[in-house]
């Protein structure tokens, strides 16, 4: 009787172990399925002209489909738009985000810092579609039109909390002796932060910036109400502009352009993957 009970307990234990392994492994299935589908359907669309030519008009695409040819053109307008908006957003978000992170790390006990910290969480948790609405009200309505500026403000607002958090957390795990040694050598706080603490935290901060970029580069909803999209390659910041995720959305909705979906998705995924690997590598070497 006793051995039977023991056997039952051991059997249950084993069942649990196998169950955990099975379901944990199953979680990898969607990743493999998604990456697999995008790679298999996208890789033969990638060509030089895919990156250098703008999106074809629906009419041109329809003609090509009727003639049985591959759709001409590519996603150059989206790549330029993404780079332009992301570049502007990053240039502004990095210094502001780092300084905010420094403030939070240096004053963690003050009341105001706690409020700022709470608001950072609030902004980070805000759905991106709401950021889109708000930037529409802030920028698009007063400027009387969609623009690359509006899109980059939206990306800026989404990147800011991510950079603040990563800077703050990296600075907080630096040993206190580092700062003390700097102060003992006669540097004032600003100098020690700039010359000792921030350089020591460089790996973490840089990783945070890369991850923030990879997080917002695929954002679609906020750009729909701010940058709108455009089928020309454009460098002006006060006019509607396209972005790679916006193009995917456009292709998804236009039956004539559907062939371009997978190439654009593959490009986006590869870019994000590259940023993530780079971030991991830097974290591994510089930390």
């Amino acid at each position, binding site marked *: 009787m006793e051995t039977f009970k023991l056997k039952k*307990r051991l059997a*249950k*234990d084993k069942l*649990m*172990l196998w*169950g*955990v*392994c*099975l*379901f*944990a492994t199953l*979680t*990898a299935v*969607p*990743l493999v399925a*998604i990456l697999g*589908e*995008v790679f298999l359907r996208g890789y033969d669309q990638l060509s030089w002209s895919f990156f250098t030519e703008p999106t074809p008009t629906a009419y041109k695409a329809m003609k090509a489909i009727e003639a049985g040819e591959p759709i001409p053109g590519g996603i150059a307008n989206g790549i330029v738009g993404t780079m332009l908006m992301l570049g502007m957003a990053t240039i502004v978000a990095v210094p*502001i985000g780092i*300084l*905010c992170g420094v*403030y939070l790390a*240096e004053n963690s006990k003050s009341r*105001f810092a706690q*409020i700022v910290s*709470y*608001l950072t*969480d609030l*902004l980070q*948790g*805000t*759905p991106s*579609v709401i950021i*889109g*609405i*708000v930037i529409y*009200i802030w920028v698009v309505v007063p400027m009387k039109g969609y623009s690359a500026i509006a899109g980059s403000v939206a990306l800026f*607002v989404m990147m*800011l909390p991510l950079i603040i958090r990563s800077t703050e957390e990296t600075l907080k795990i630096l040993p206190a002796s580092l700062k003390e040694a700097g102060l003992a050598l006669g540097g*004032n*706080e*600003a*100098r020690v*932060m700039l010359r000792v603490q921030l350089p020591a935290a460089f790996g973490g901060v840089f990783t945070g910036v890369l991850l923030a970029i*990879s*997080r917002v*580069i*695929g*954002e*679609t909803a906020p750009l*729909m*109400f701010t940058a709108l999209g455009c089928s020309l390659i454009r460098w002006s910041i006060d006019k509607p502009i396209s972005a790679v*995720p916006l193009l*995917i959305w456009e292709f*998804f909705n236009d039956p004539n352009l559907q062939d371009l979906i997978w190439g654009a*998705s593959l490009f986006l*995924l590869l870019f*994000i*993957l590259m940023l*993530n690997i780079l971030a991991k590598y830097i974290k591994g070497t510089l930390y």
Partner: protein
Amino acid sequence: MNDKLYKVLLFIVALIMPIVCGGVVYALVTDAYDAFEHFGFFRFLTSSEWSYTEGAEQYGALPFITGTLMTTLLALVFCIPFSLPVALFVGEYFRDSRIAAVLSTVVDLLAGIPSIIYGLWGFYTLRPIIMALNISPQGSGILTASLVLAIMIIPYASSLSAEFIKMVPNDLKEGAYSLGATRLEVVRNVVFPVAGSGIFSSYVLAIGRALGETMTVTMLIGNTNDMPNSITATGNSMASIIANQFGEADGLRLSSLIAIGLILFLITAIINMVGKIMIKRARIA
């Protein structure tokens, strides 16, 4: 740069957070005001009509609030059987092993995929399966959207849960082992009770994520404005109605959409705040 100037500079830069967040709330409230004034706050929340016939415009948020709650709750139900084993795998059974590192990298990568690509996958792969299984004739609907949402929130739920499972003190577990407990019994009687509130809070944060997911839901939920009457029905979530109609809306309809945005903002803010407070408590305990 002297210390005083440095401190003042930091303070001024930090002011950007209250300004941005205040600006978000101000913009949403002022632009949603029209809709609330026209329909009444309470009636806007409880009316299920959404029609833009000119002259007889009627907007209510109830179908979309329902759609959001249904997709979120279903996603949570589908997510738990996978995220909990992942958390146990990484945090307890194979903690600090190479294979656990591989699994957490895989799960992290899931978090990095943009929502529009999840939407494409759901549309071109999952939707035909749902149609082939005869679950719903059109394939898209609340069920399809929730299935993909579930995959999307697995990383958020599991990585934080694993962290809390790892924090369970070893001597407690060893005590149970020395009394002859099997691993399952340790997990059930020691790990879950100790890490429970932390695990729970990680699911609260995962809900916060699911509530605001836009593109995936927009591509899969079917986009109808009626009250959903079953889990396979088509519908719209708060985020997806905004994504669908914001570009073409003006006047009262635009204001109504912004009002829905404000409600969504408040719901996610509350859920996230509750989650963060619970995490803080669980960390101290």
